[in-house]
């Protein structure tokens, strides 16, 4: 649980990093209502100065994320942070394809499925952790890409899926997309 001043722009809006611009717009308006001067939710728990501060942060967040170039730059800066070893999830806990016989044979859907099953992780639990529907996770493993909502989302789904299996999200995403599309 991070201190409120250290939240990413996505965490500030309570959206996933692959949120659509429609979802971002909706979350921004929700945030303005939450931290508005007459908000019932903020009554007696978030003071006036903090609400003003939050509304400023929400405005700046909205401007950055609704601008494709601004969002791409921000996303790059985020993944730069992710490469730094974090105490909670050190980078060396992820494994690559066939690394020391620990990873999956390849990053193709059926191999990922076999690997996941060998780890004893259910799709239901991945779905619970990532909020991605089980049907979408099944589509990833069967490489039934027509059942998925589009390449933009697929990339986000793959990264989240990789994290649940402690696999390198970038490597998995790159190879999966190269081999299955």
């Amino acid at each position, binding site marked *: 649980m991070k201190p409120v001043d250290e939240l990413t722009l996505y965490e500030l809006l309570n959206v996933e990093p692959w949120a659509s611009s429609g979802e971002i717009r909706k979350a921004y308006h929700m945030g303005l209502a939450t931290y508005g001067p007459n908000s019932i939710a903020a009554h*007696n728990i978030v003071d006036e100065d903090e609400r003003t501060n939050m509304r400023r942060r929400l405005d700046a967040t909205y401007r950055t994320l609704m601008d494709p170039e601004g969002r791409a730059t921000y996303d790059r800066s985020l993944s730069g942070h992710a490469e730094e070893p974090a105490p909670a999830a050190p980078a060396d806990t992820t494994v690559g394809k066939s690394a020391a016989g620990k990873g999956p044979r390849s990053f193709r859907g059926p191999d990922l499925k076999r690997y996941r099953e060998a780890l004893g992780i259910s799709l239901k639990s991945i779905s619970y952790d990532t909020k991605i529907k089980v049907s979408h996770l099944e589509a990833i493993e069967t490489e039934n890409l027509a059942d998925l909502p589009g390449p933009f989302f697929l990339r986000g789904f793959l990264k989240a899926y990789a994290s649940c299996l402690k696999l390198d999200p970038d490597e998995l995403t790159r190879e999966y997309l190269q081999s299955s599309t």
Partner: protein
Amino acid sequence: MAGPEAQPTPQDMKSIWAIGGGKGGTGKSFMTASLGIQLAQLGRRTIIVDADLGAANLHTCLGVKSPKVTLADFLSRTVSSLEDLLLDTSVEGLQFISAARDSFELANPAFQQKQRMINHIKRLPAEFIIVDIGGGSGFNAVDFFLCATTGIMLANPEPTSVENTYRFLKSAILRKLYRVADGRQLKETIREALAQADGQEIKTIQDLIHQVRPYNGVVAERLEEALRDFRPFLILNQARRKDDVDLGRSIEDIARKYLGVEVRYVGAVPYDEKVHYAVKQFKPLLIEYPSSQAAASIEAITRTLLGMTESRAVAAQES
């Protein structure tokens, strides 16, 4: 109508849902009765317990005018087991335990009495046990809430009720934190961490943990773990407008950012005159007005809660 036979259920199969939330009069007894009826109608064997000690009225929401045995008999040891207090209801698969017949002793049970009651609640023979813990943020209410497998807060979309919801959350967090770290050690660590804060503002519980971490990593880790495990649900009752319904999302957001707690908002029950009519007729809403708007939203909320509690149980087993 006779209820199902009392067959012991393995304790690990049991779900205990506690309904609380800080403020009286938000509709906790109504919601407890409604969730119980809905679960029983979905074929899940359920017992509802009125633990709103001193202000019990669950029996009225169920249409039982004067229960023959109540918690007072258990606390005075007239009966030795909570199971002896089970009363059948008009709904198949649903039994309840009343706390009517108020007494000072019932409203203010001693610590051992409360613990004995909690232990007996956990052994009740049903798949679902729903406990109405009443209003207030005192230790009695909070302890019942924390012993449940699922804590559900009920609030109205009004400033007074929302304010008390946060008060209840803070009280539950503190109680939980004091349980995980030895009270004296925790106080000492927090005092010293605050002394080291050196003018830095401590706005939230996360800020506090952040400040405690370099000073005492073990305590910080235990506090963080206790916060992670505490994921209460929220239902809003008597929503009149869309912004009343949206309020639940705003409470989730503020609880996450400023209290460090993942509250899950599972829906709002609309304001519906049928609720008032049902109570005046001493009849449960779901029996008397099953096609009302409020009844439809209660069915949706029950199904959501069922799905979420079951997936949490699966996740807990897998981890």
